[in-house]
């Protein structure tokens, strides 16, 4: 069973997204802040990480940088899932090694799961 780590401080989104992904047959690991997310990324080595950017304790960009700097986690695809959509944010995330950048407001749950499945297929 493939593991997906969701680093997202909104518990409502964690719950909805977690439910859908579990029903799709993924094992879901929730993290409500950057610090816990980073720890879980290192200890659990998930197959995919969904990462919000505005996070308590450690900001999403720092989490991404640390994941990509660590040889043990750098190969894990990271999907940025946020409501920030400035060009600088997108550019910065992609430069730091994010696989794709999705703006929450622009996607339905179904479209989002299609995107996640696509990332698995491409990796």
């Amino acid at each position: 069973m493939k593991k997906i780590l969701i680093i997202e401080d909104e518990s409502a989104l964690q719950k909805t997204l977690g439910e859908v992904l579990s029903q799709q047959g993924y094992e879901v690991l929730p993290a409500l802040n950057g610090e816990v997310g980073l720890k879980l990324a290192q200890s659990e080595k998930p197959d995919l990480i969904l990462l919000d950017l505005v996070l308590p304790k450690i900001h999403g960009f720092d989490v991404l940088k640390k994941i990509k700097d660590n040889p043990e986690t750098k190969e894990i695809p990271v999907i940025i899932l946020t409501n920030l959509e400035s060009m600088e944010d997108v550019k910065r995330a992609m430069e730091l090694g994010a696989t794709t950048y999705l703006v929450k407001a622009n996607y339905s749950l179904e479209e989002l799961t299609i995107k996640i499945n696509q990332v698995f297929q491409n990796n």
Partner: protein
Amino acid sequence: MKLEEISEQLNVSAQCRKYGLSLWQCPQFLFLIMGIIIVVTAITVYWIGTKYIGDPYLVSLIILGVSAVLFVIDFTISHSFEKLAEANKIKSEFISIVSHQLRTPISNLKWAIELLMSGRLGKIEAKQTEYFKILKENIGRMGELVKDLLMVSRIEAQTLFLKEKRFSLSDMIKELIVAFRPLAKASNITISFKNQKDLPQIMADPFQIRQVIENLLDNAIRYTKEKGKVKLKLKLEHDNFYFEISDAGVGIPQKDKKYIFQKFFRTDNAMKYQTQGSGLGLYIAKSIIKKSKGKIGFKSQEGQGSTFWFTLPIKR
């Protein structure tokens, strides 16, 4: 005033950027220009004074008097401008913060409703589905409004950047007609499209141009009373693409024509006929077309209908 504050005030371009204003609307720049005018006036007064008045003390006194009056006027005007610019900046920041903050709960609601409606959490009765649809539709409306408000704050903060690429404008229009057909059908409206053959591709931001056409098409359908036709046209004119959309709708009253592209503006007859609407669509459309180096305009007669058009450069 501290030395740092003074040097900050003297950095005109930084001050203009802070307020998100162009140079000619910026209080600090206008203060500078008026300062130059004062100096020129003082020199002119001196020149005229020495030529026509014998007493040098009197000349100096006149110059001092005129300069002082002009300086006070200059300071008062630019200070009021600065206050206005500051208030405008606070308003823009407020719109930006509120719309950003609203996005997360809207996403939460949108996804939760979608999950409920999918039946993954249990079977949904037909009657419940009906109400879930109402919720979904209204969350969608809130989402659209927040998207428009964010767009406005980007336009005002001058952070609207275009991601240009080549695409077929004609294909985009055809796709949008298909997408709008259910709304048109529900309102008993037919949409026709006449386009010149073998048009080249356009170099523009497809996401933003789509928004412009969406806004114009949406308006044309919504403001058409009863049965009617919405006609779209695309052709090349000189070195530009020319797009036009005509409806036989409620039209725009003469007195409102000059305000039509202003943000939050809605004509009285539009509000009478269609209560929904934020008055942001045409403001956004104009900003995008202007940013894309095109032109936008309209002709309209109240009760007869409106024709909106825009041009965009080909950029081969």
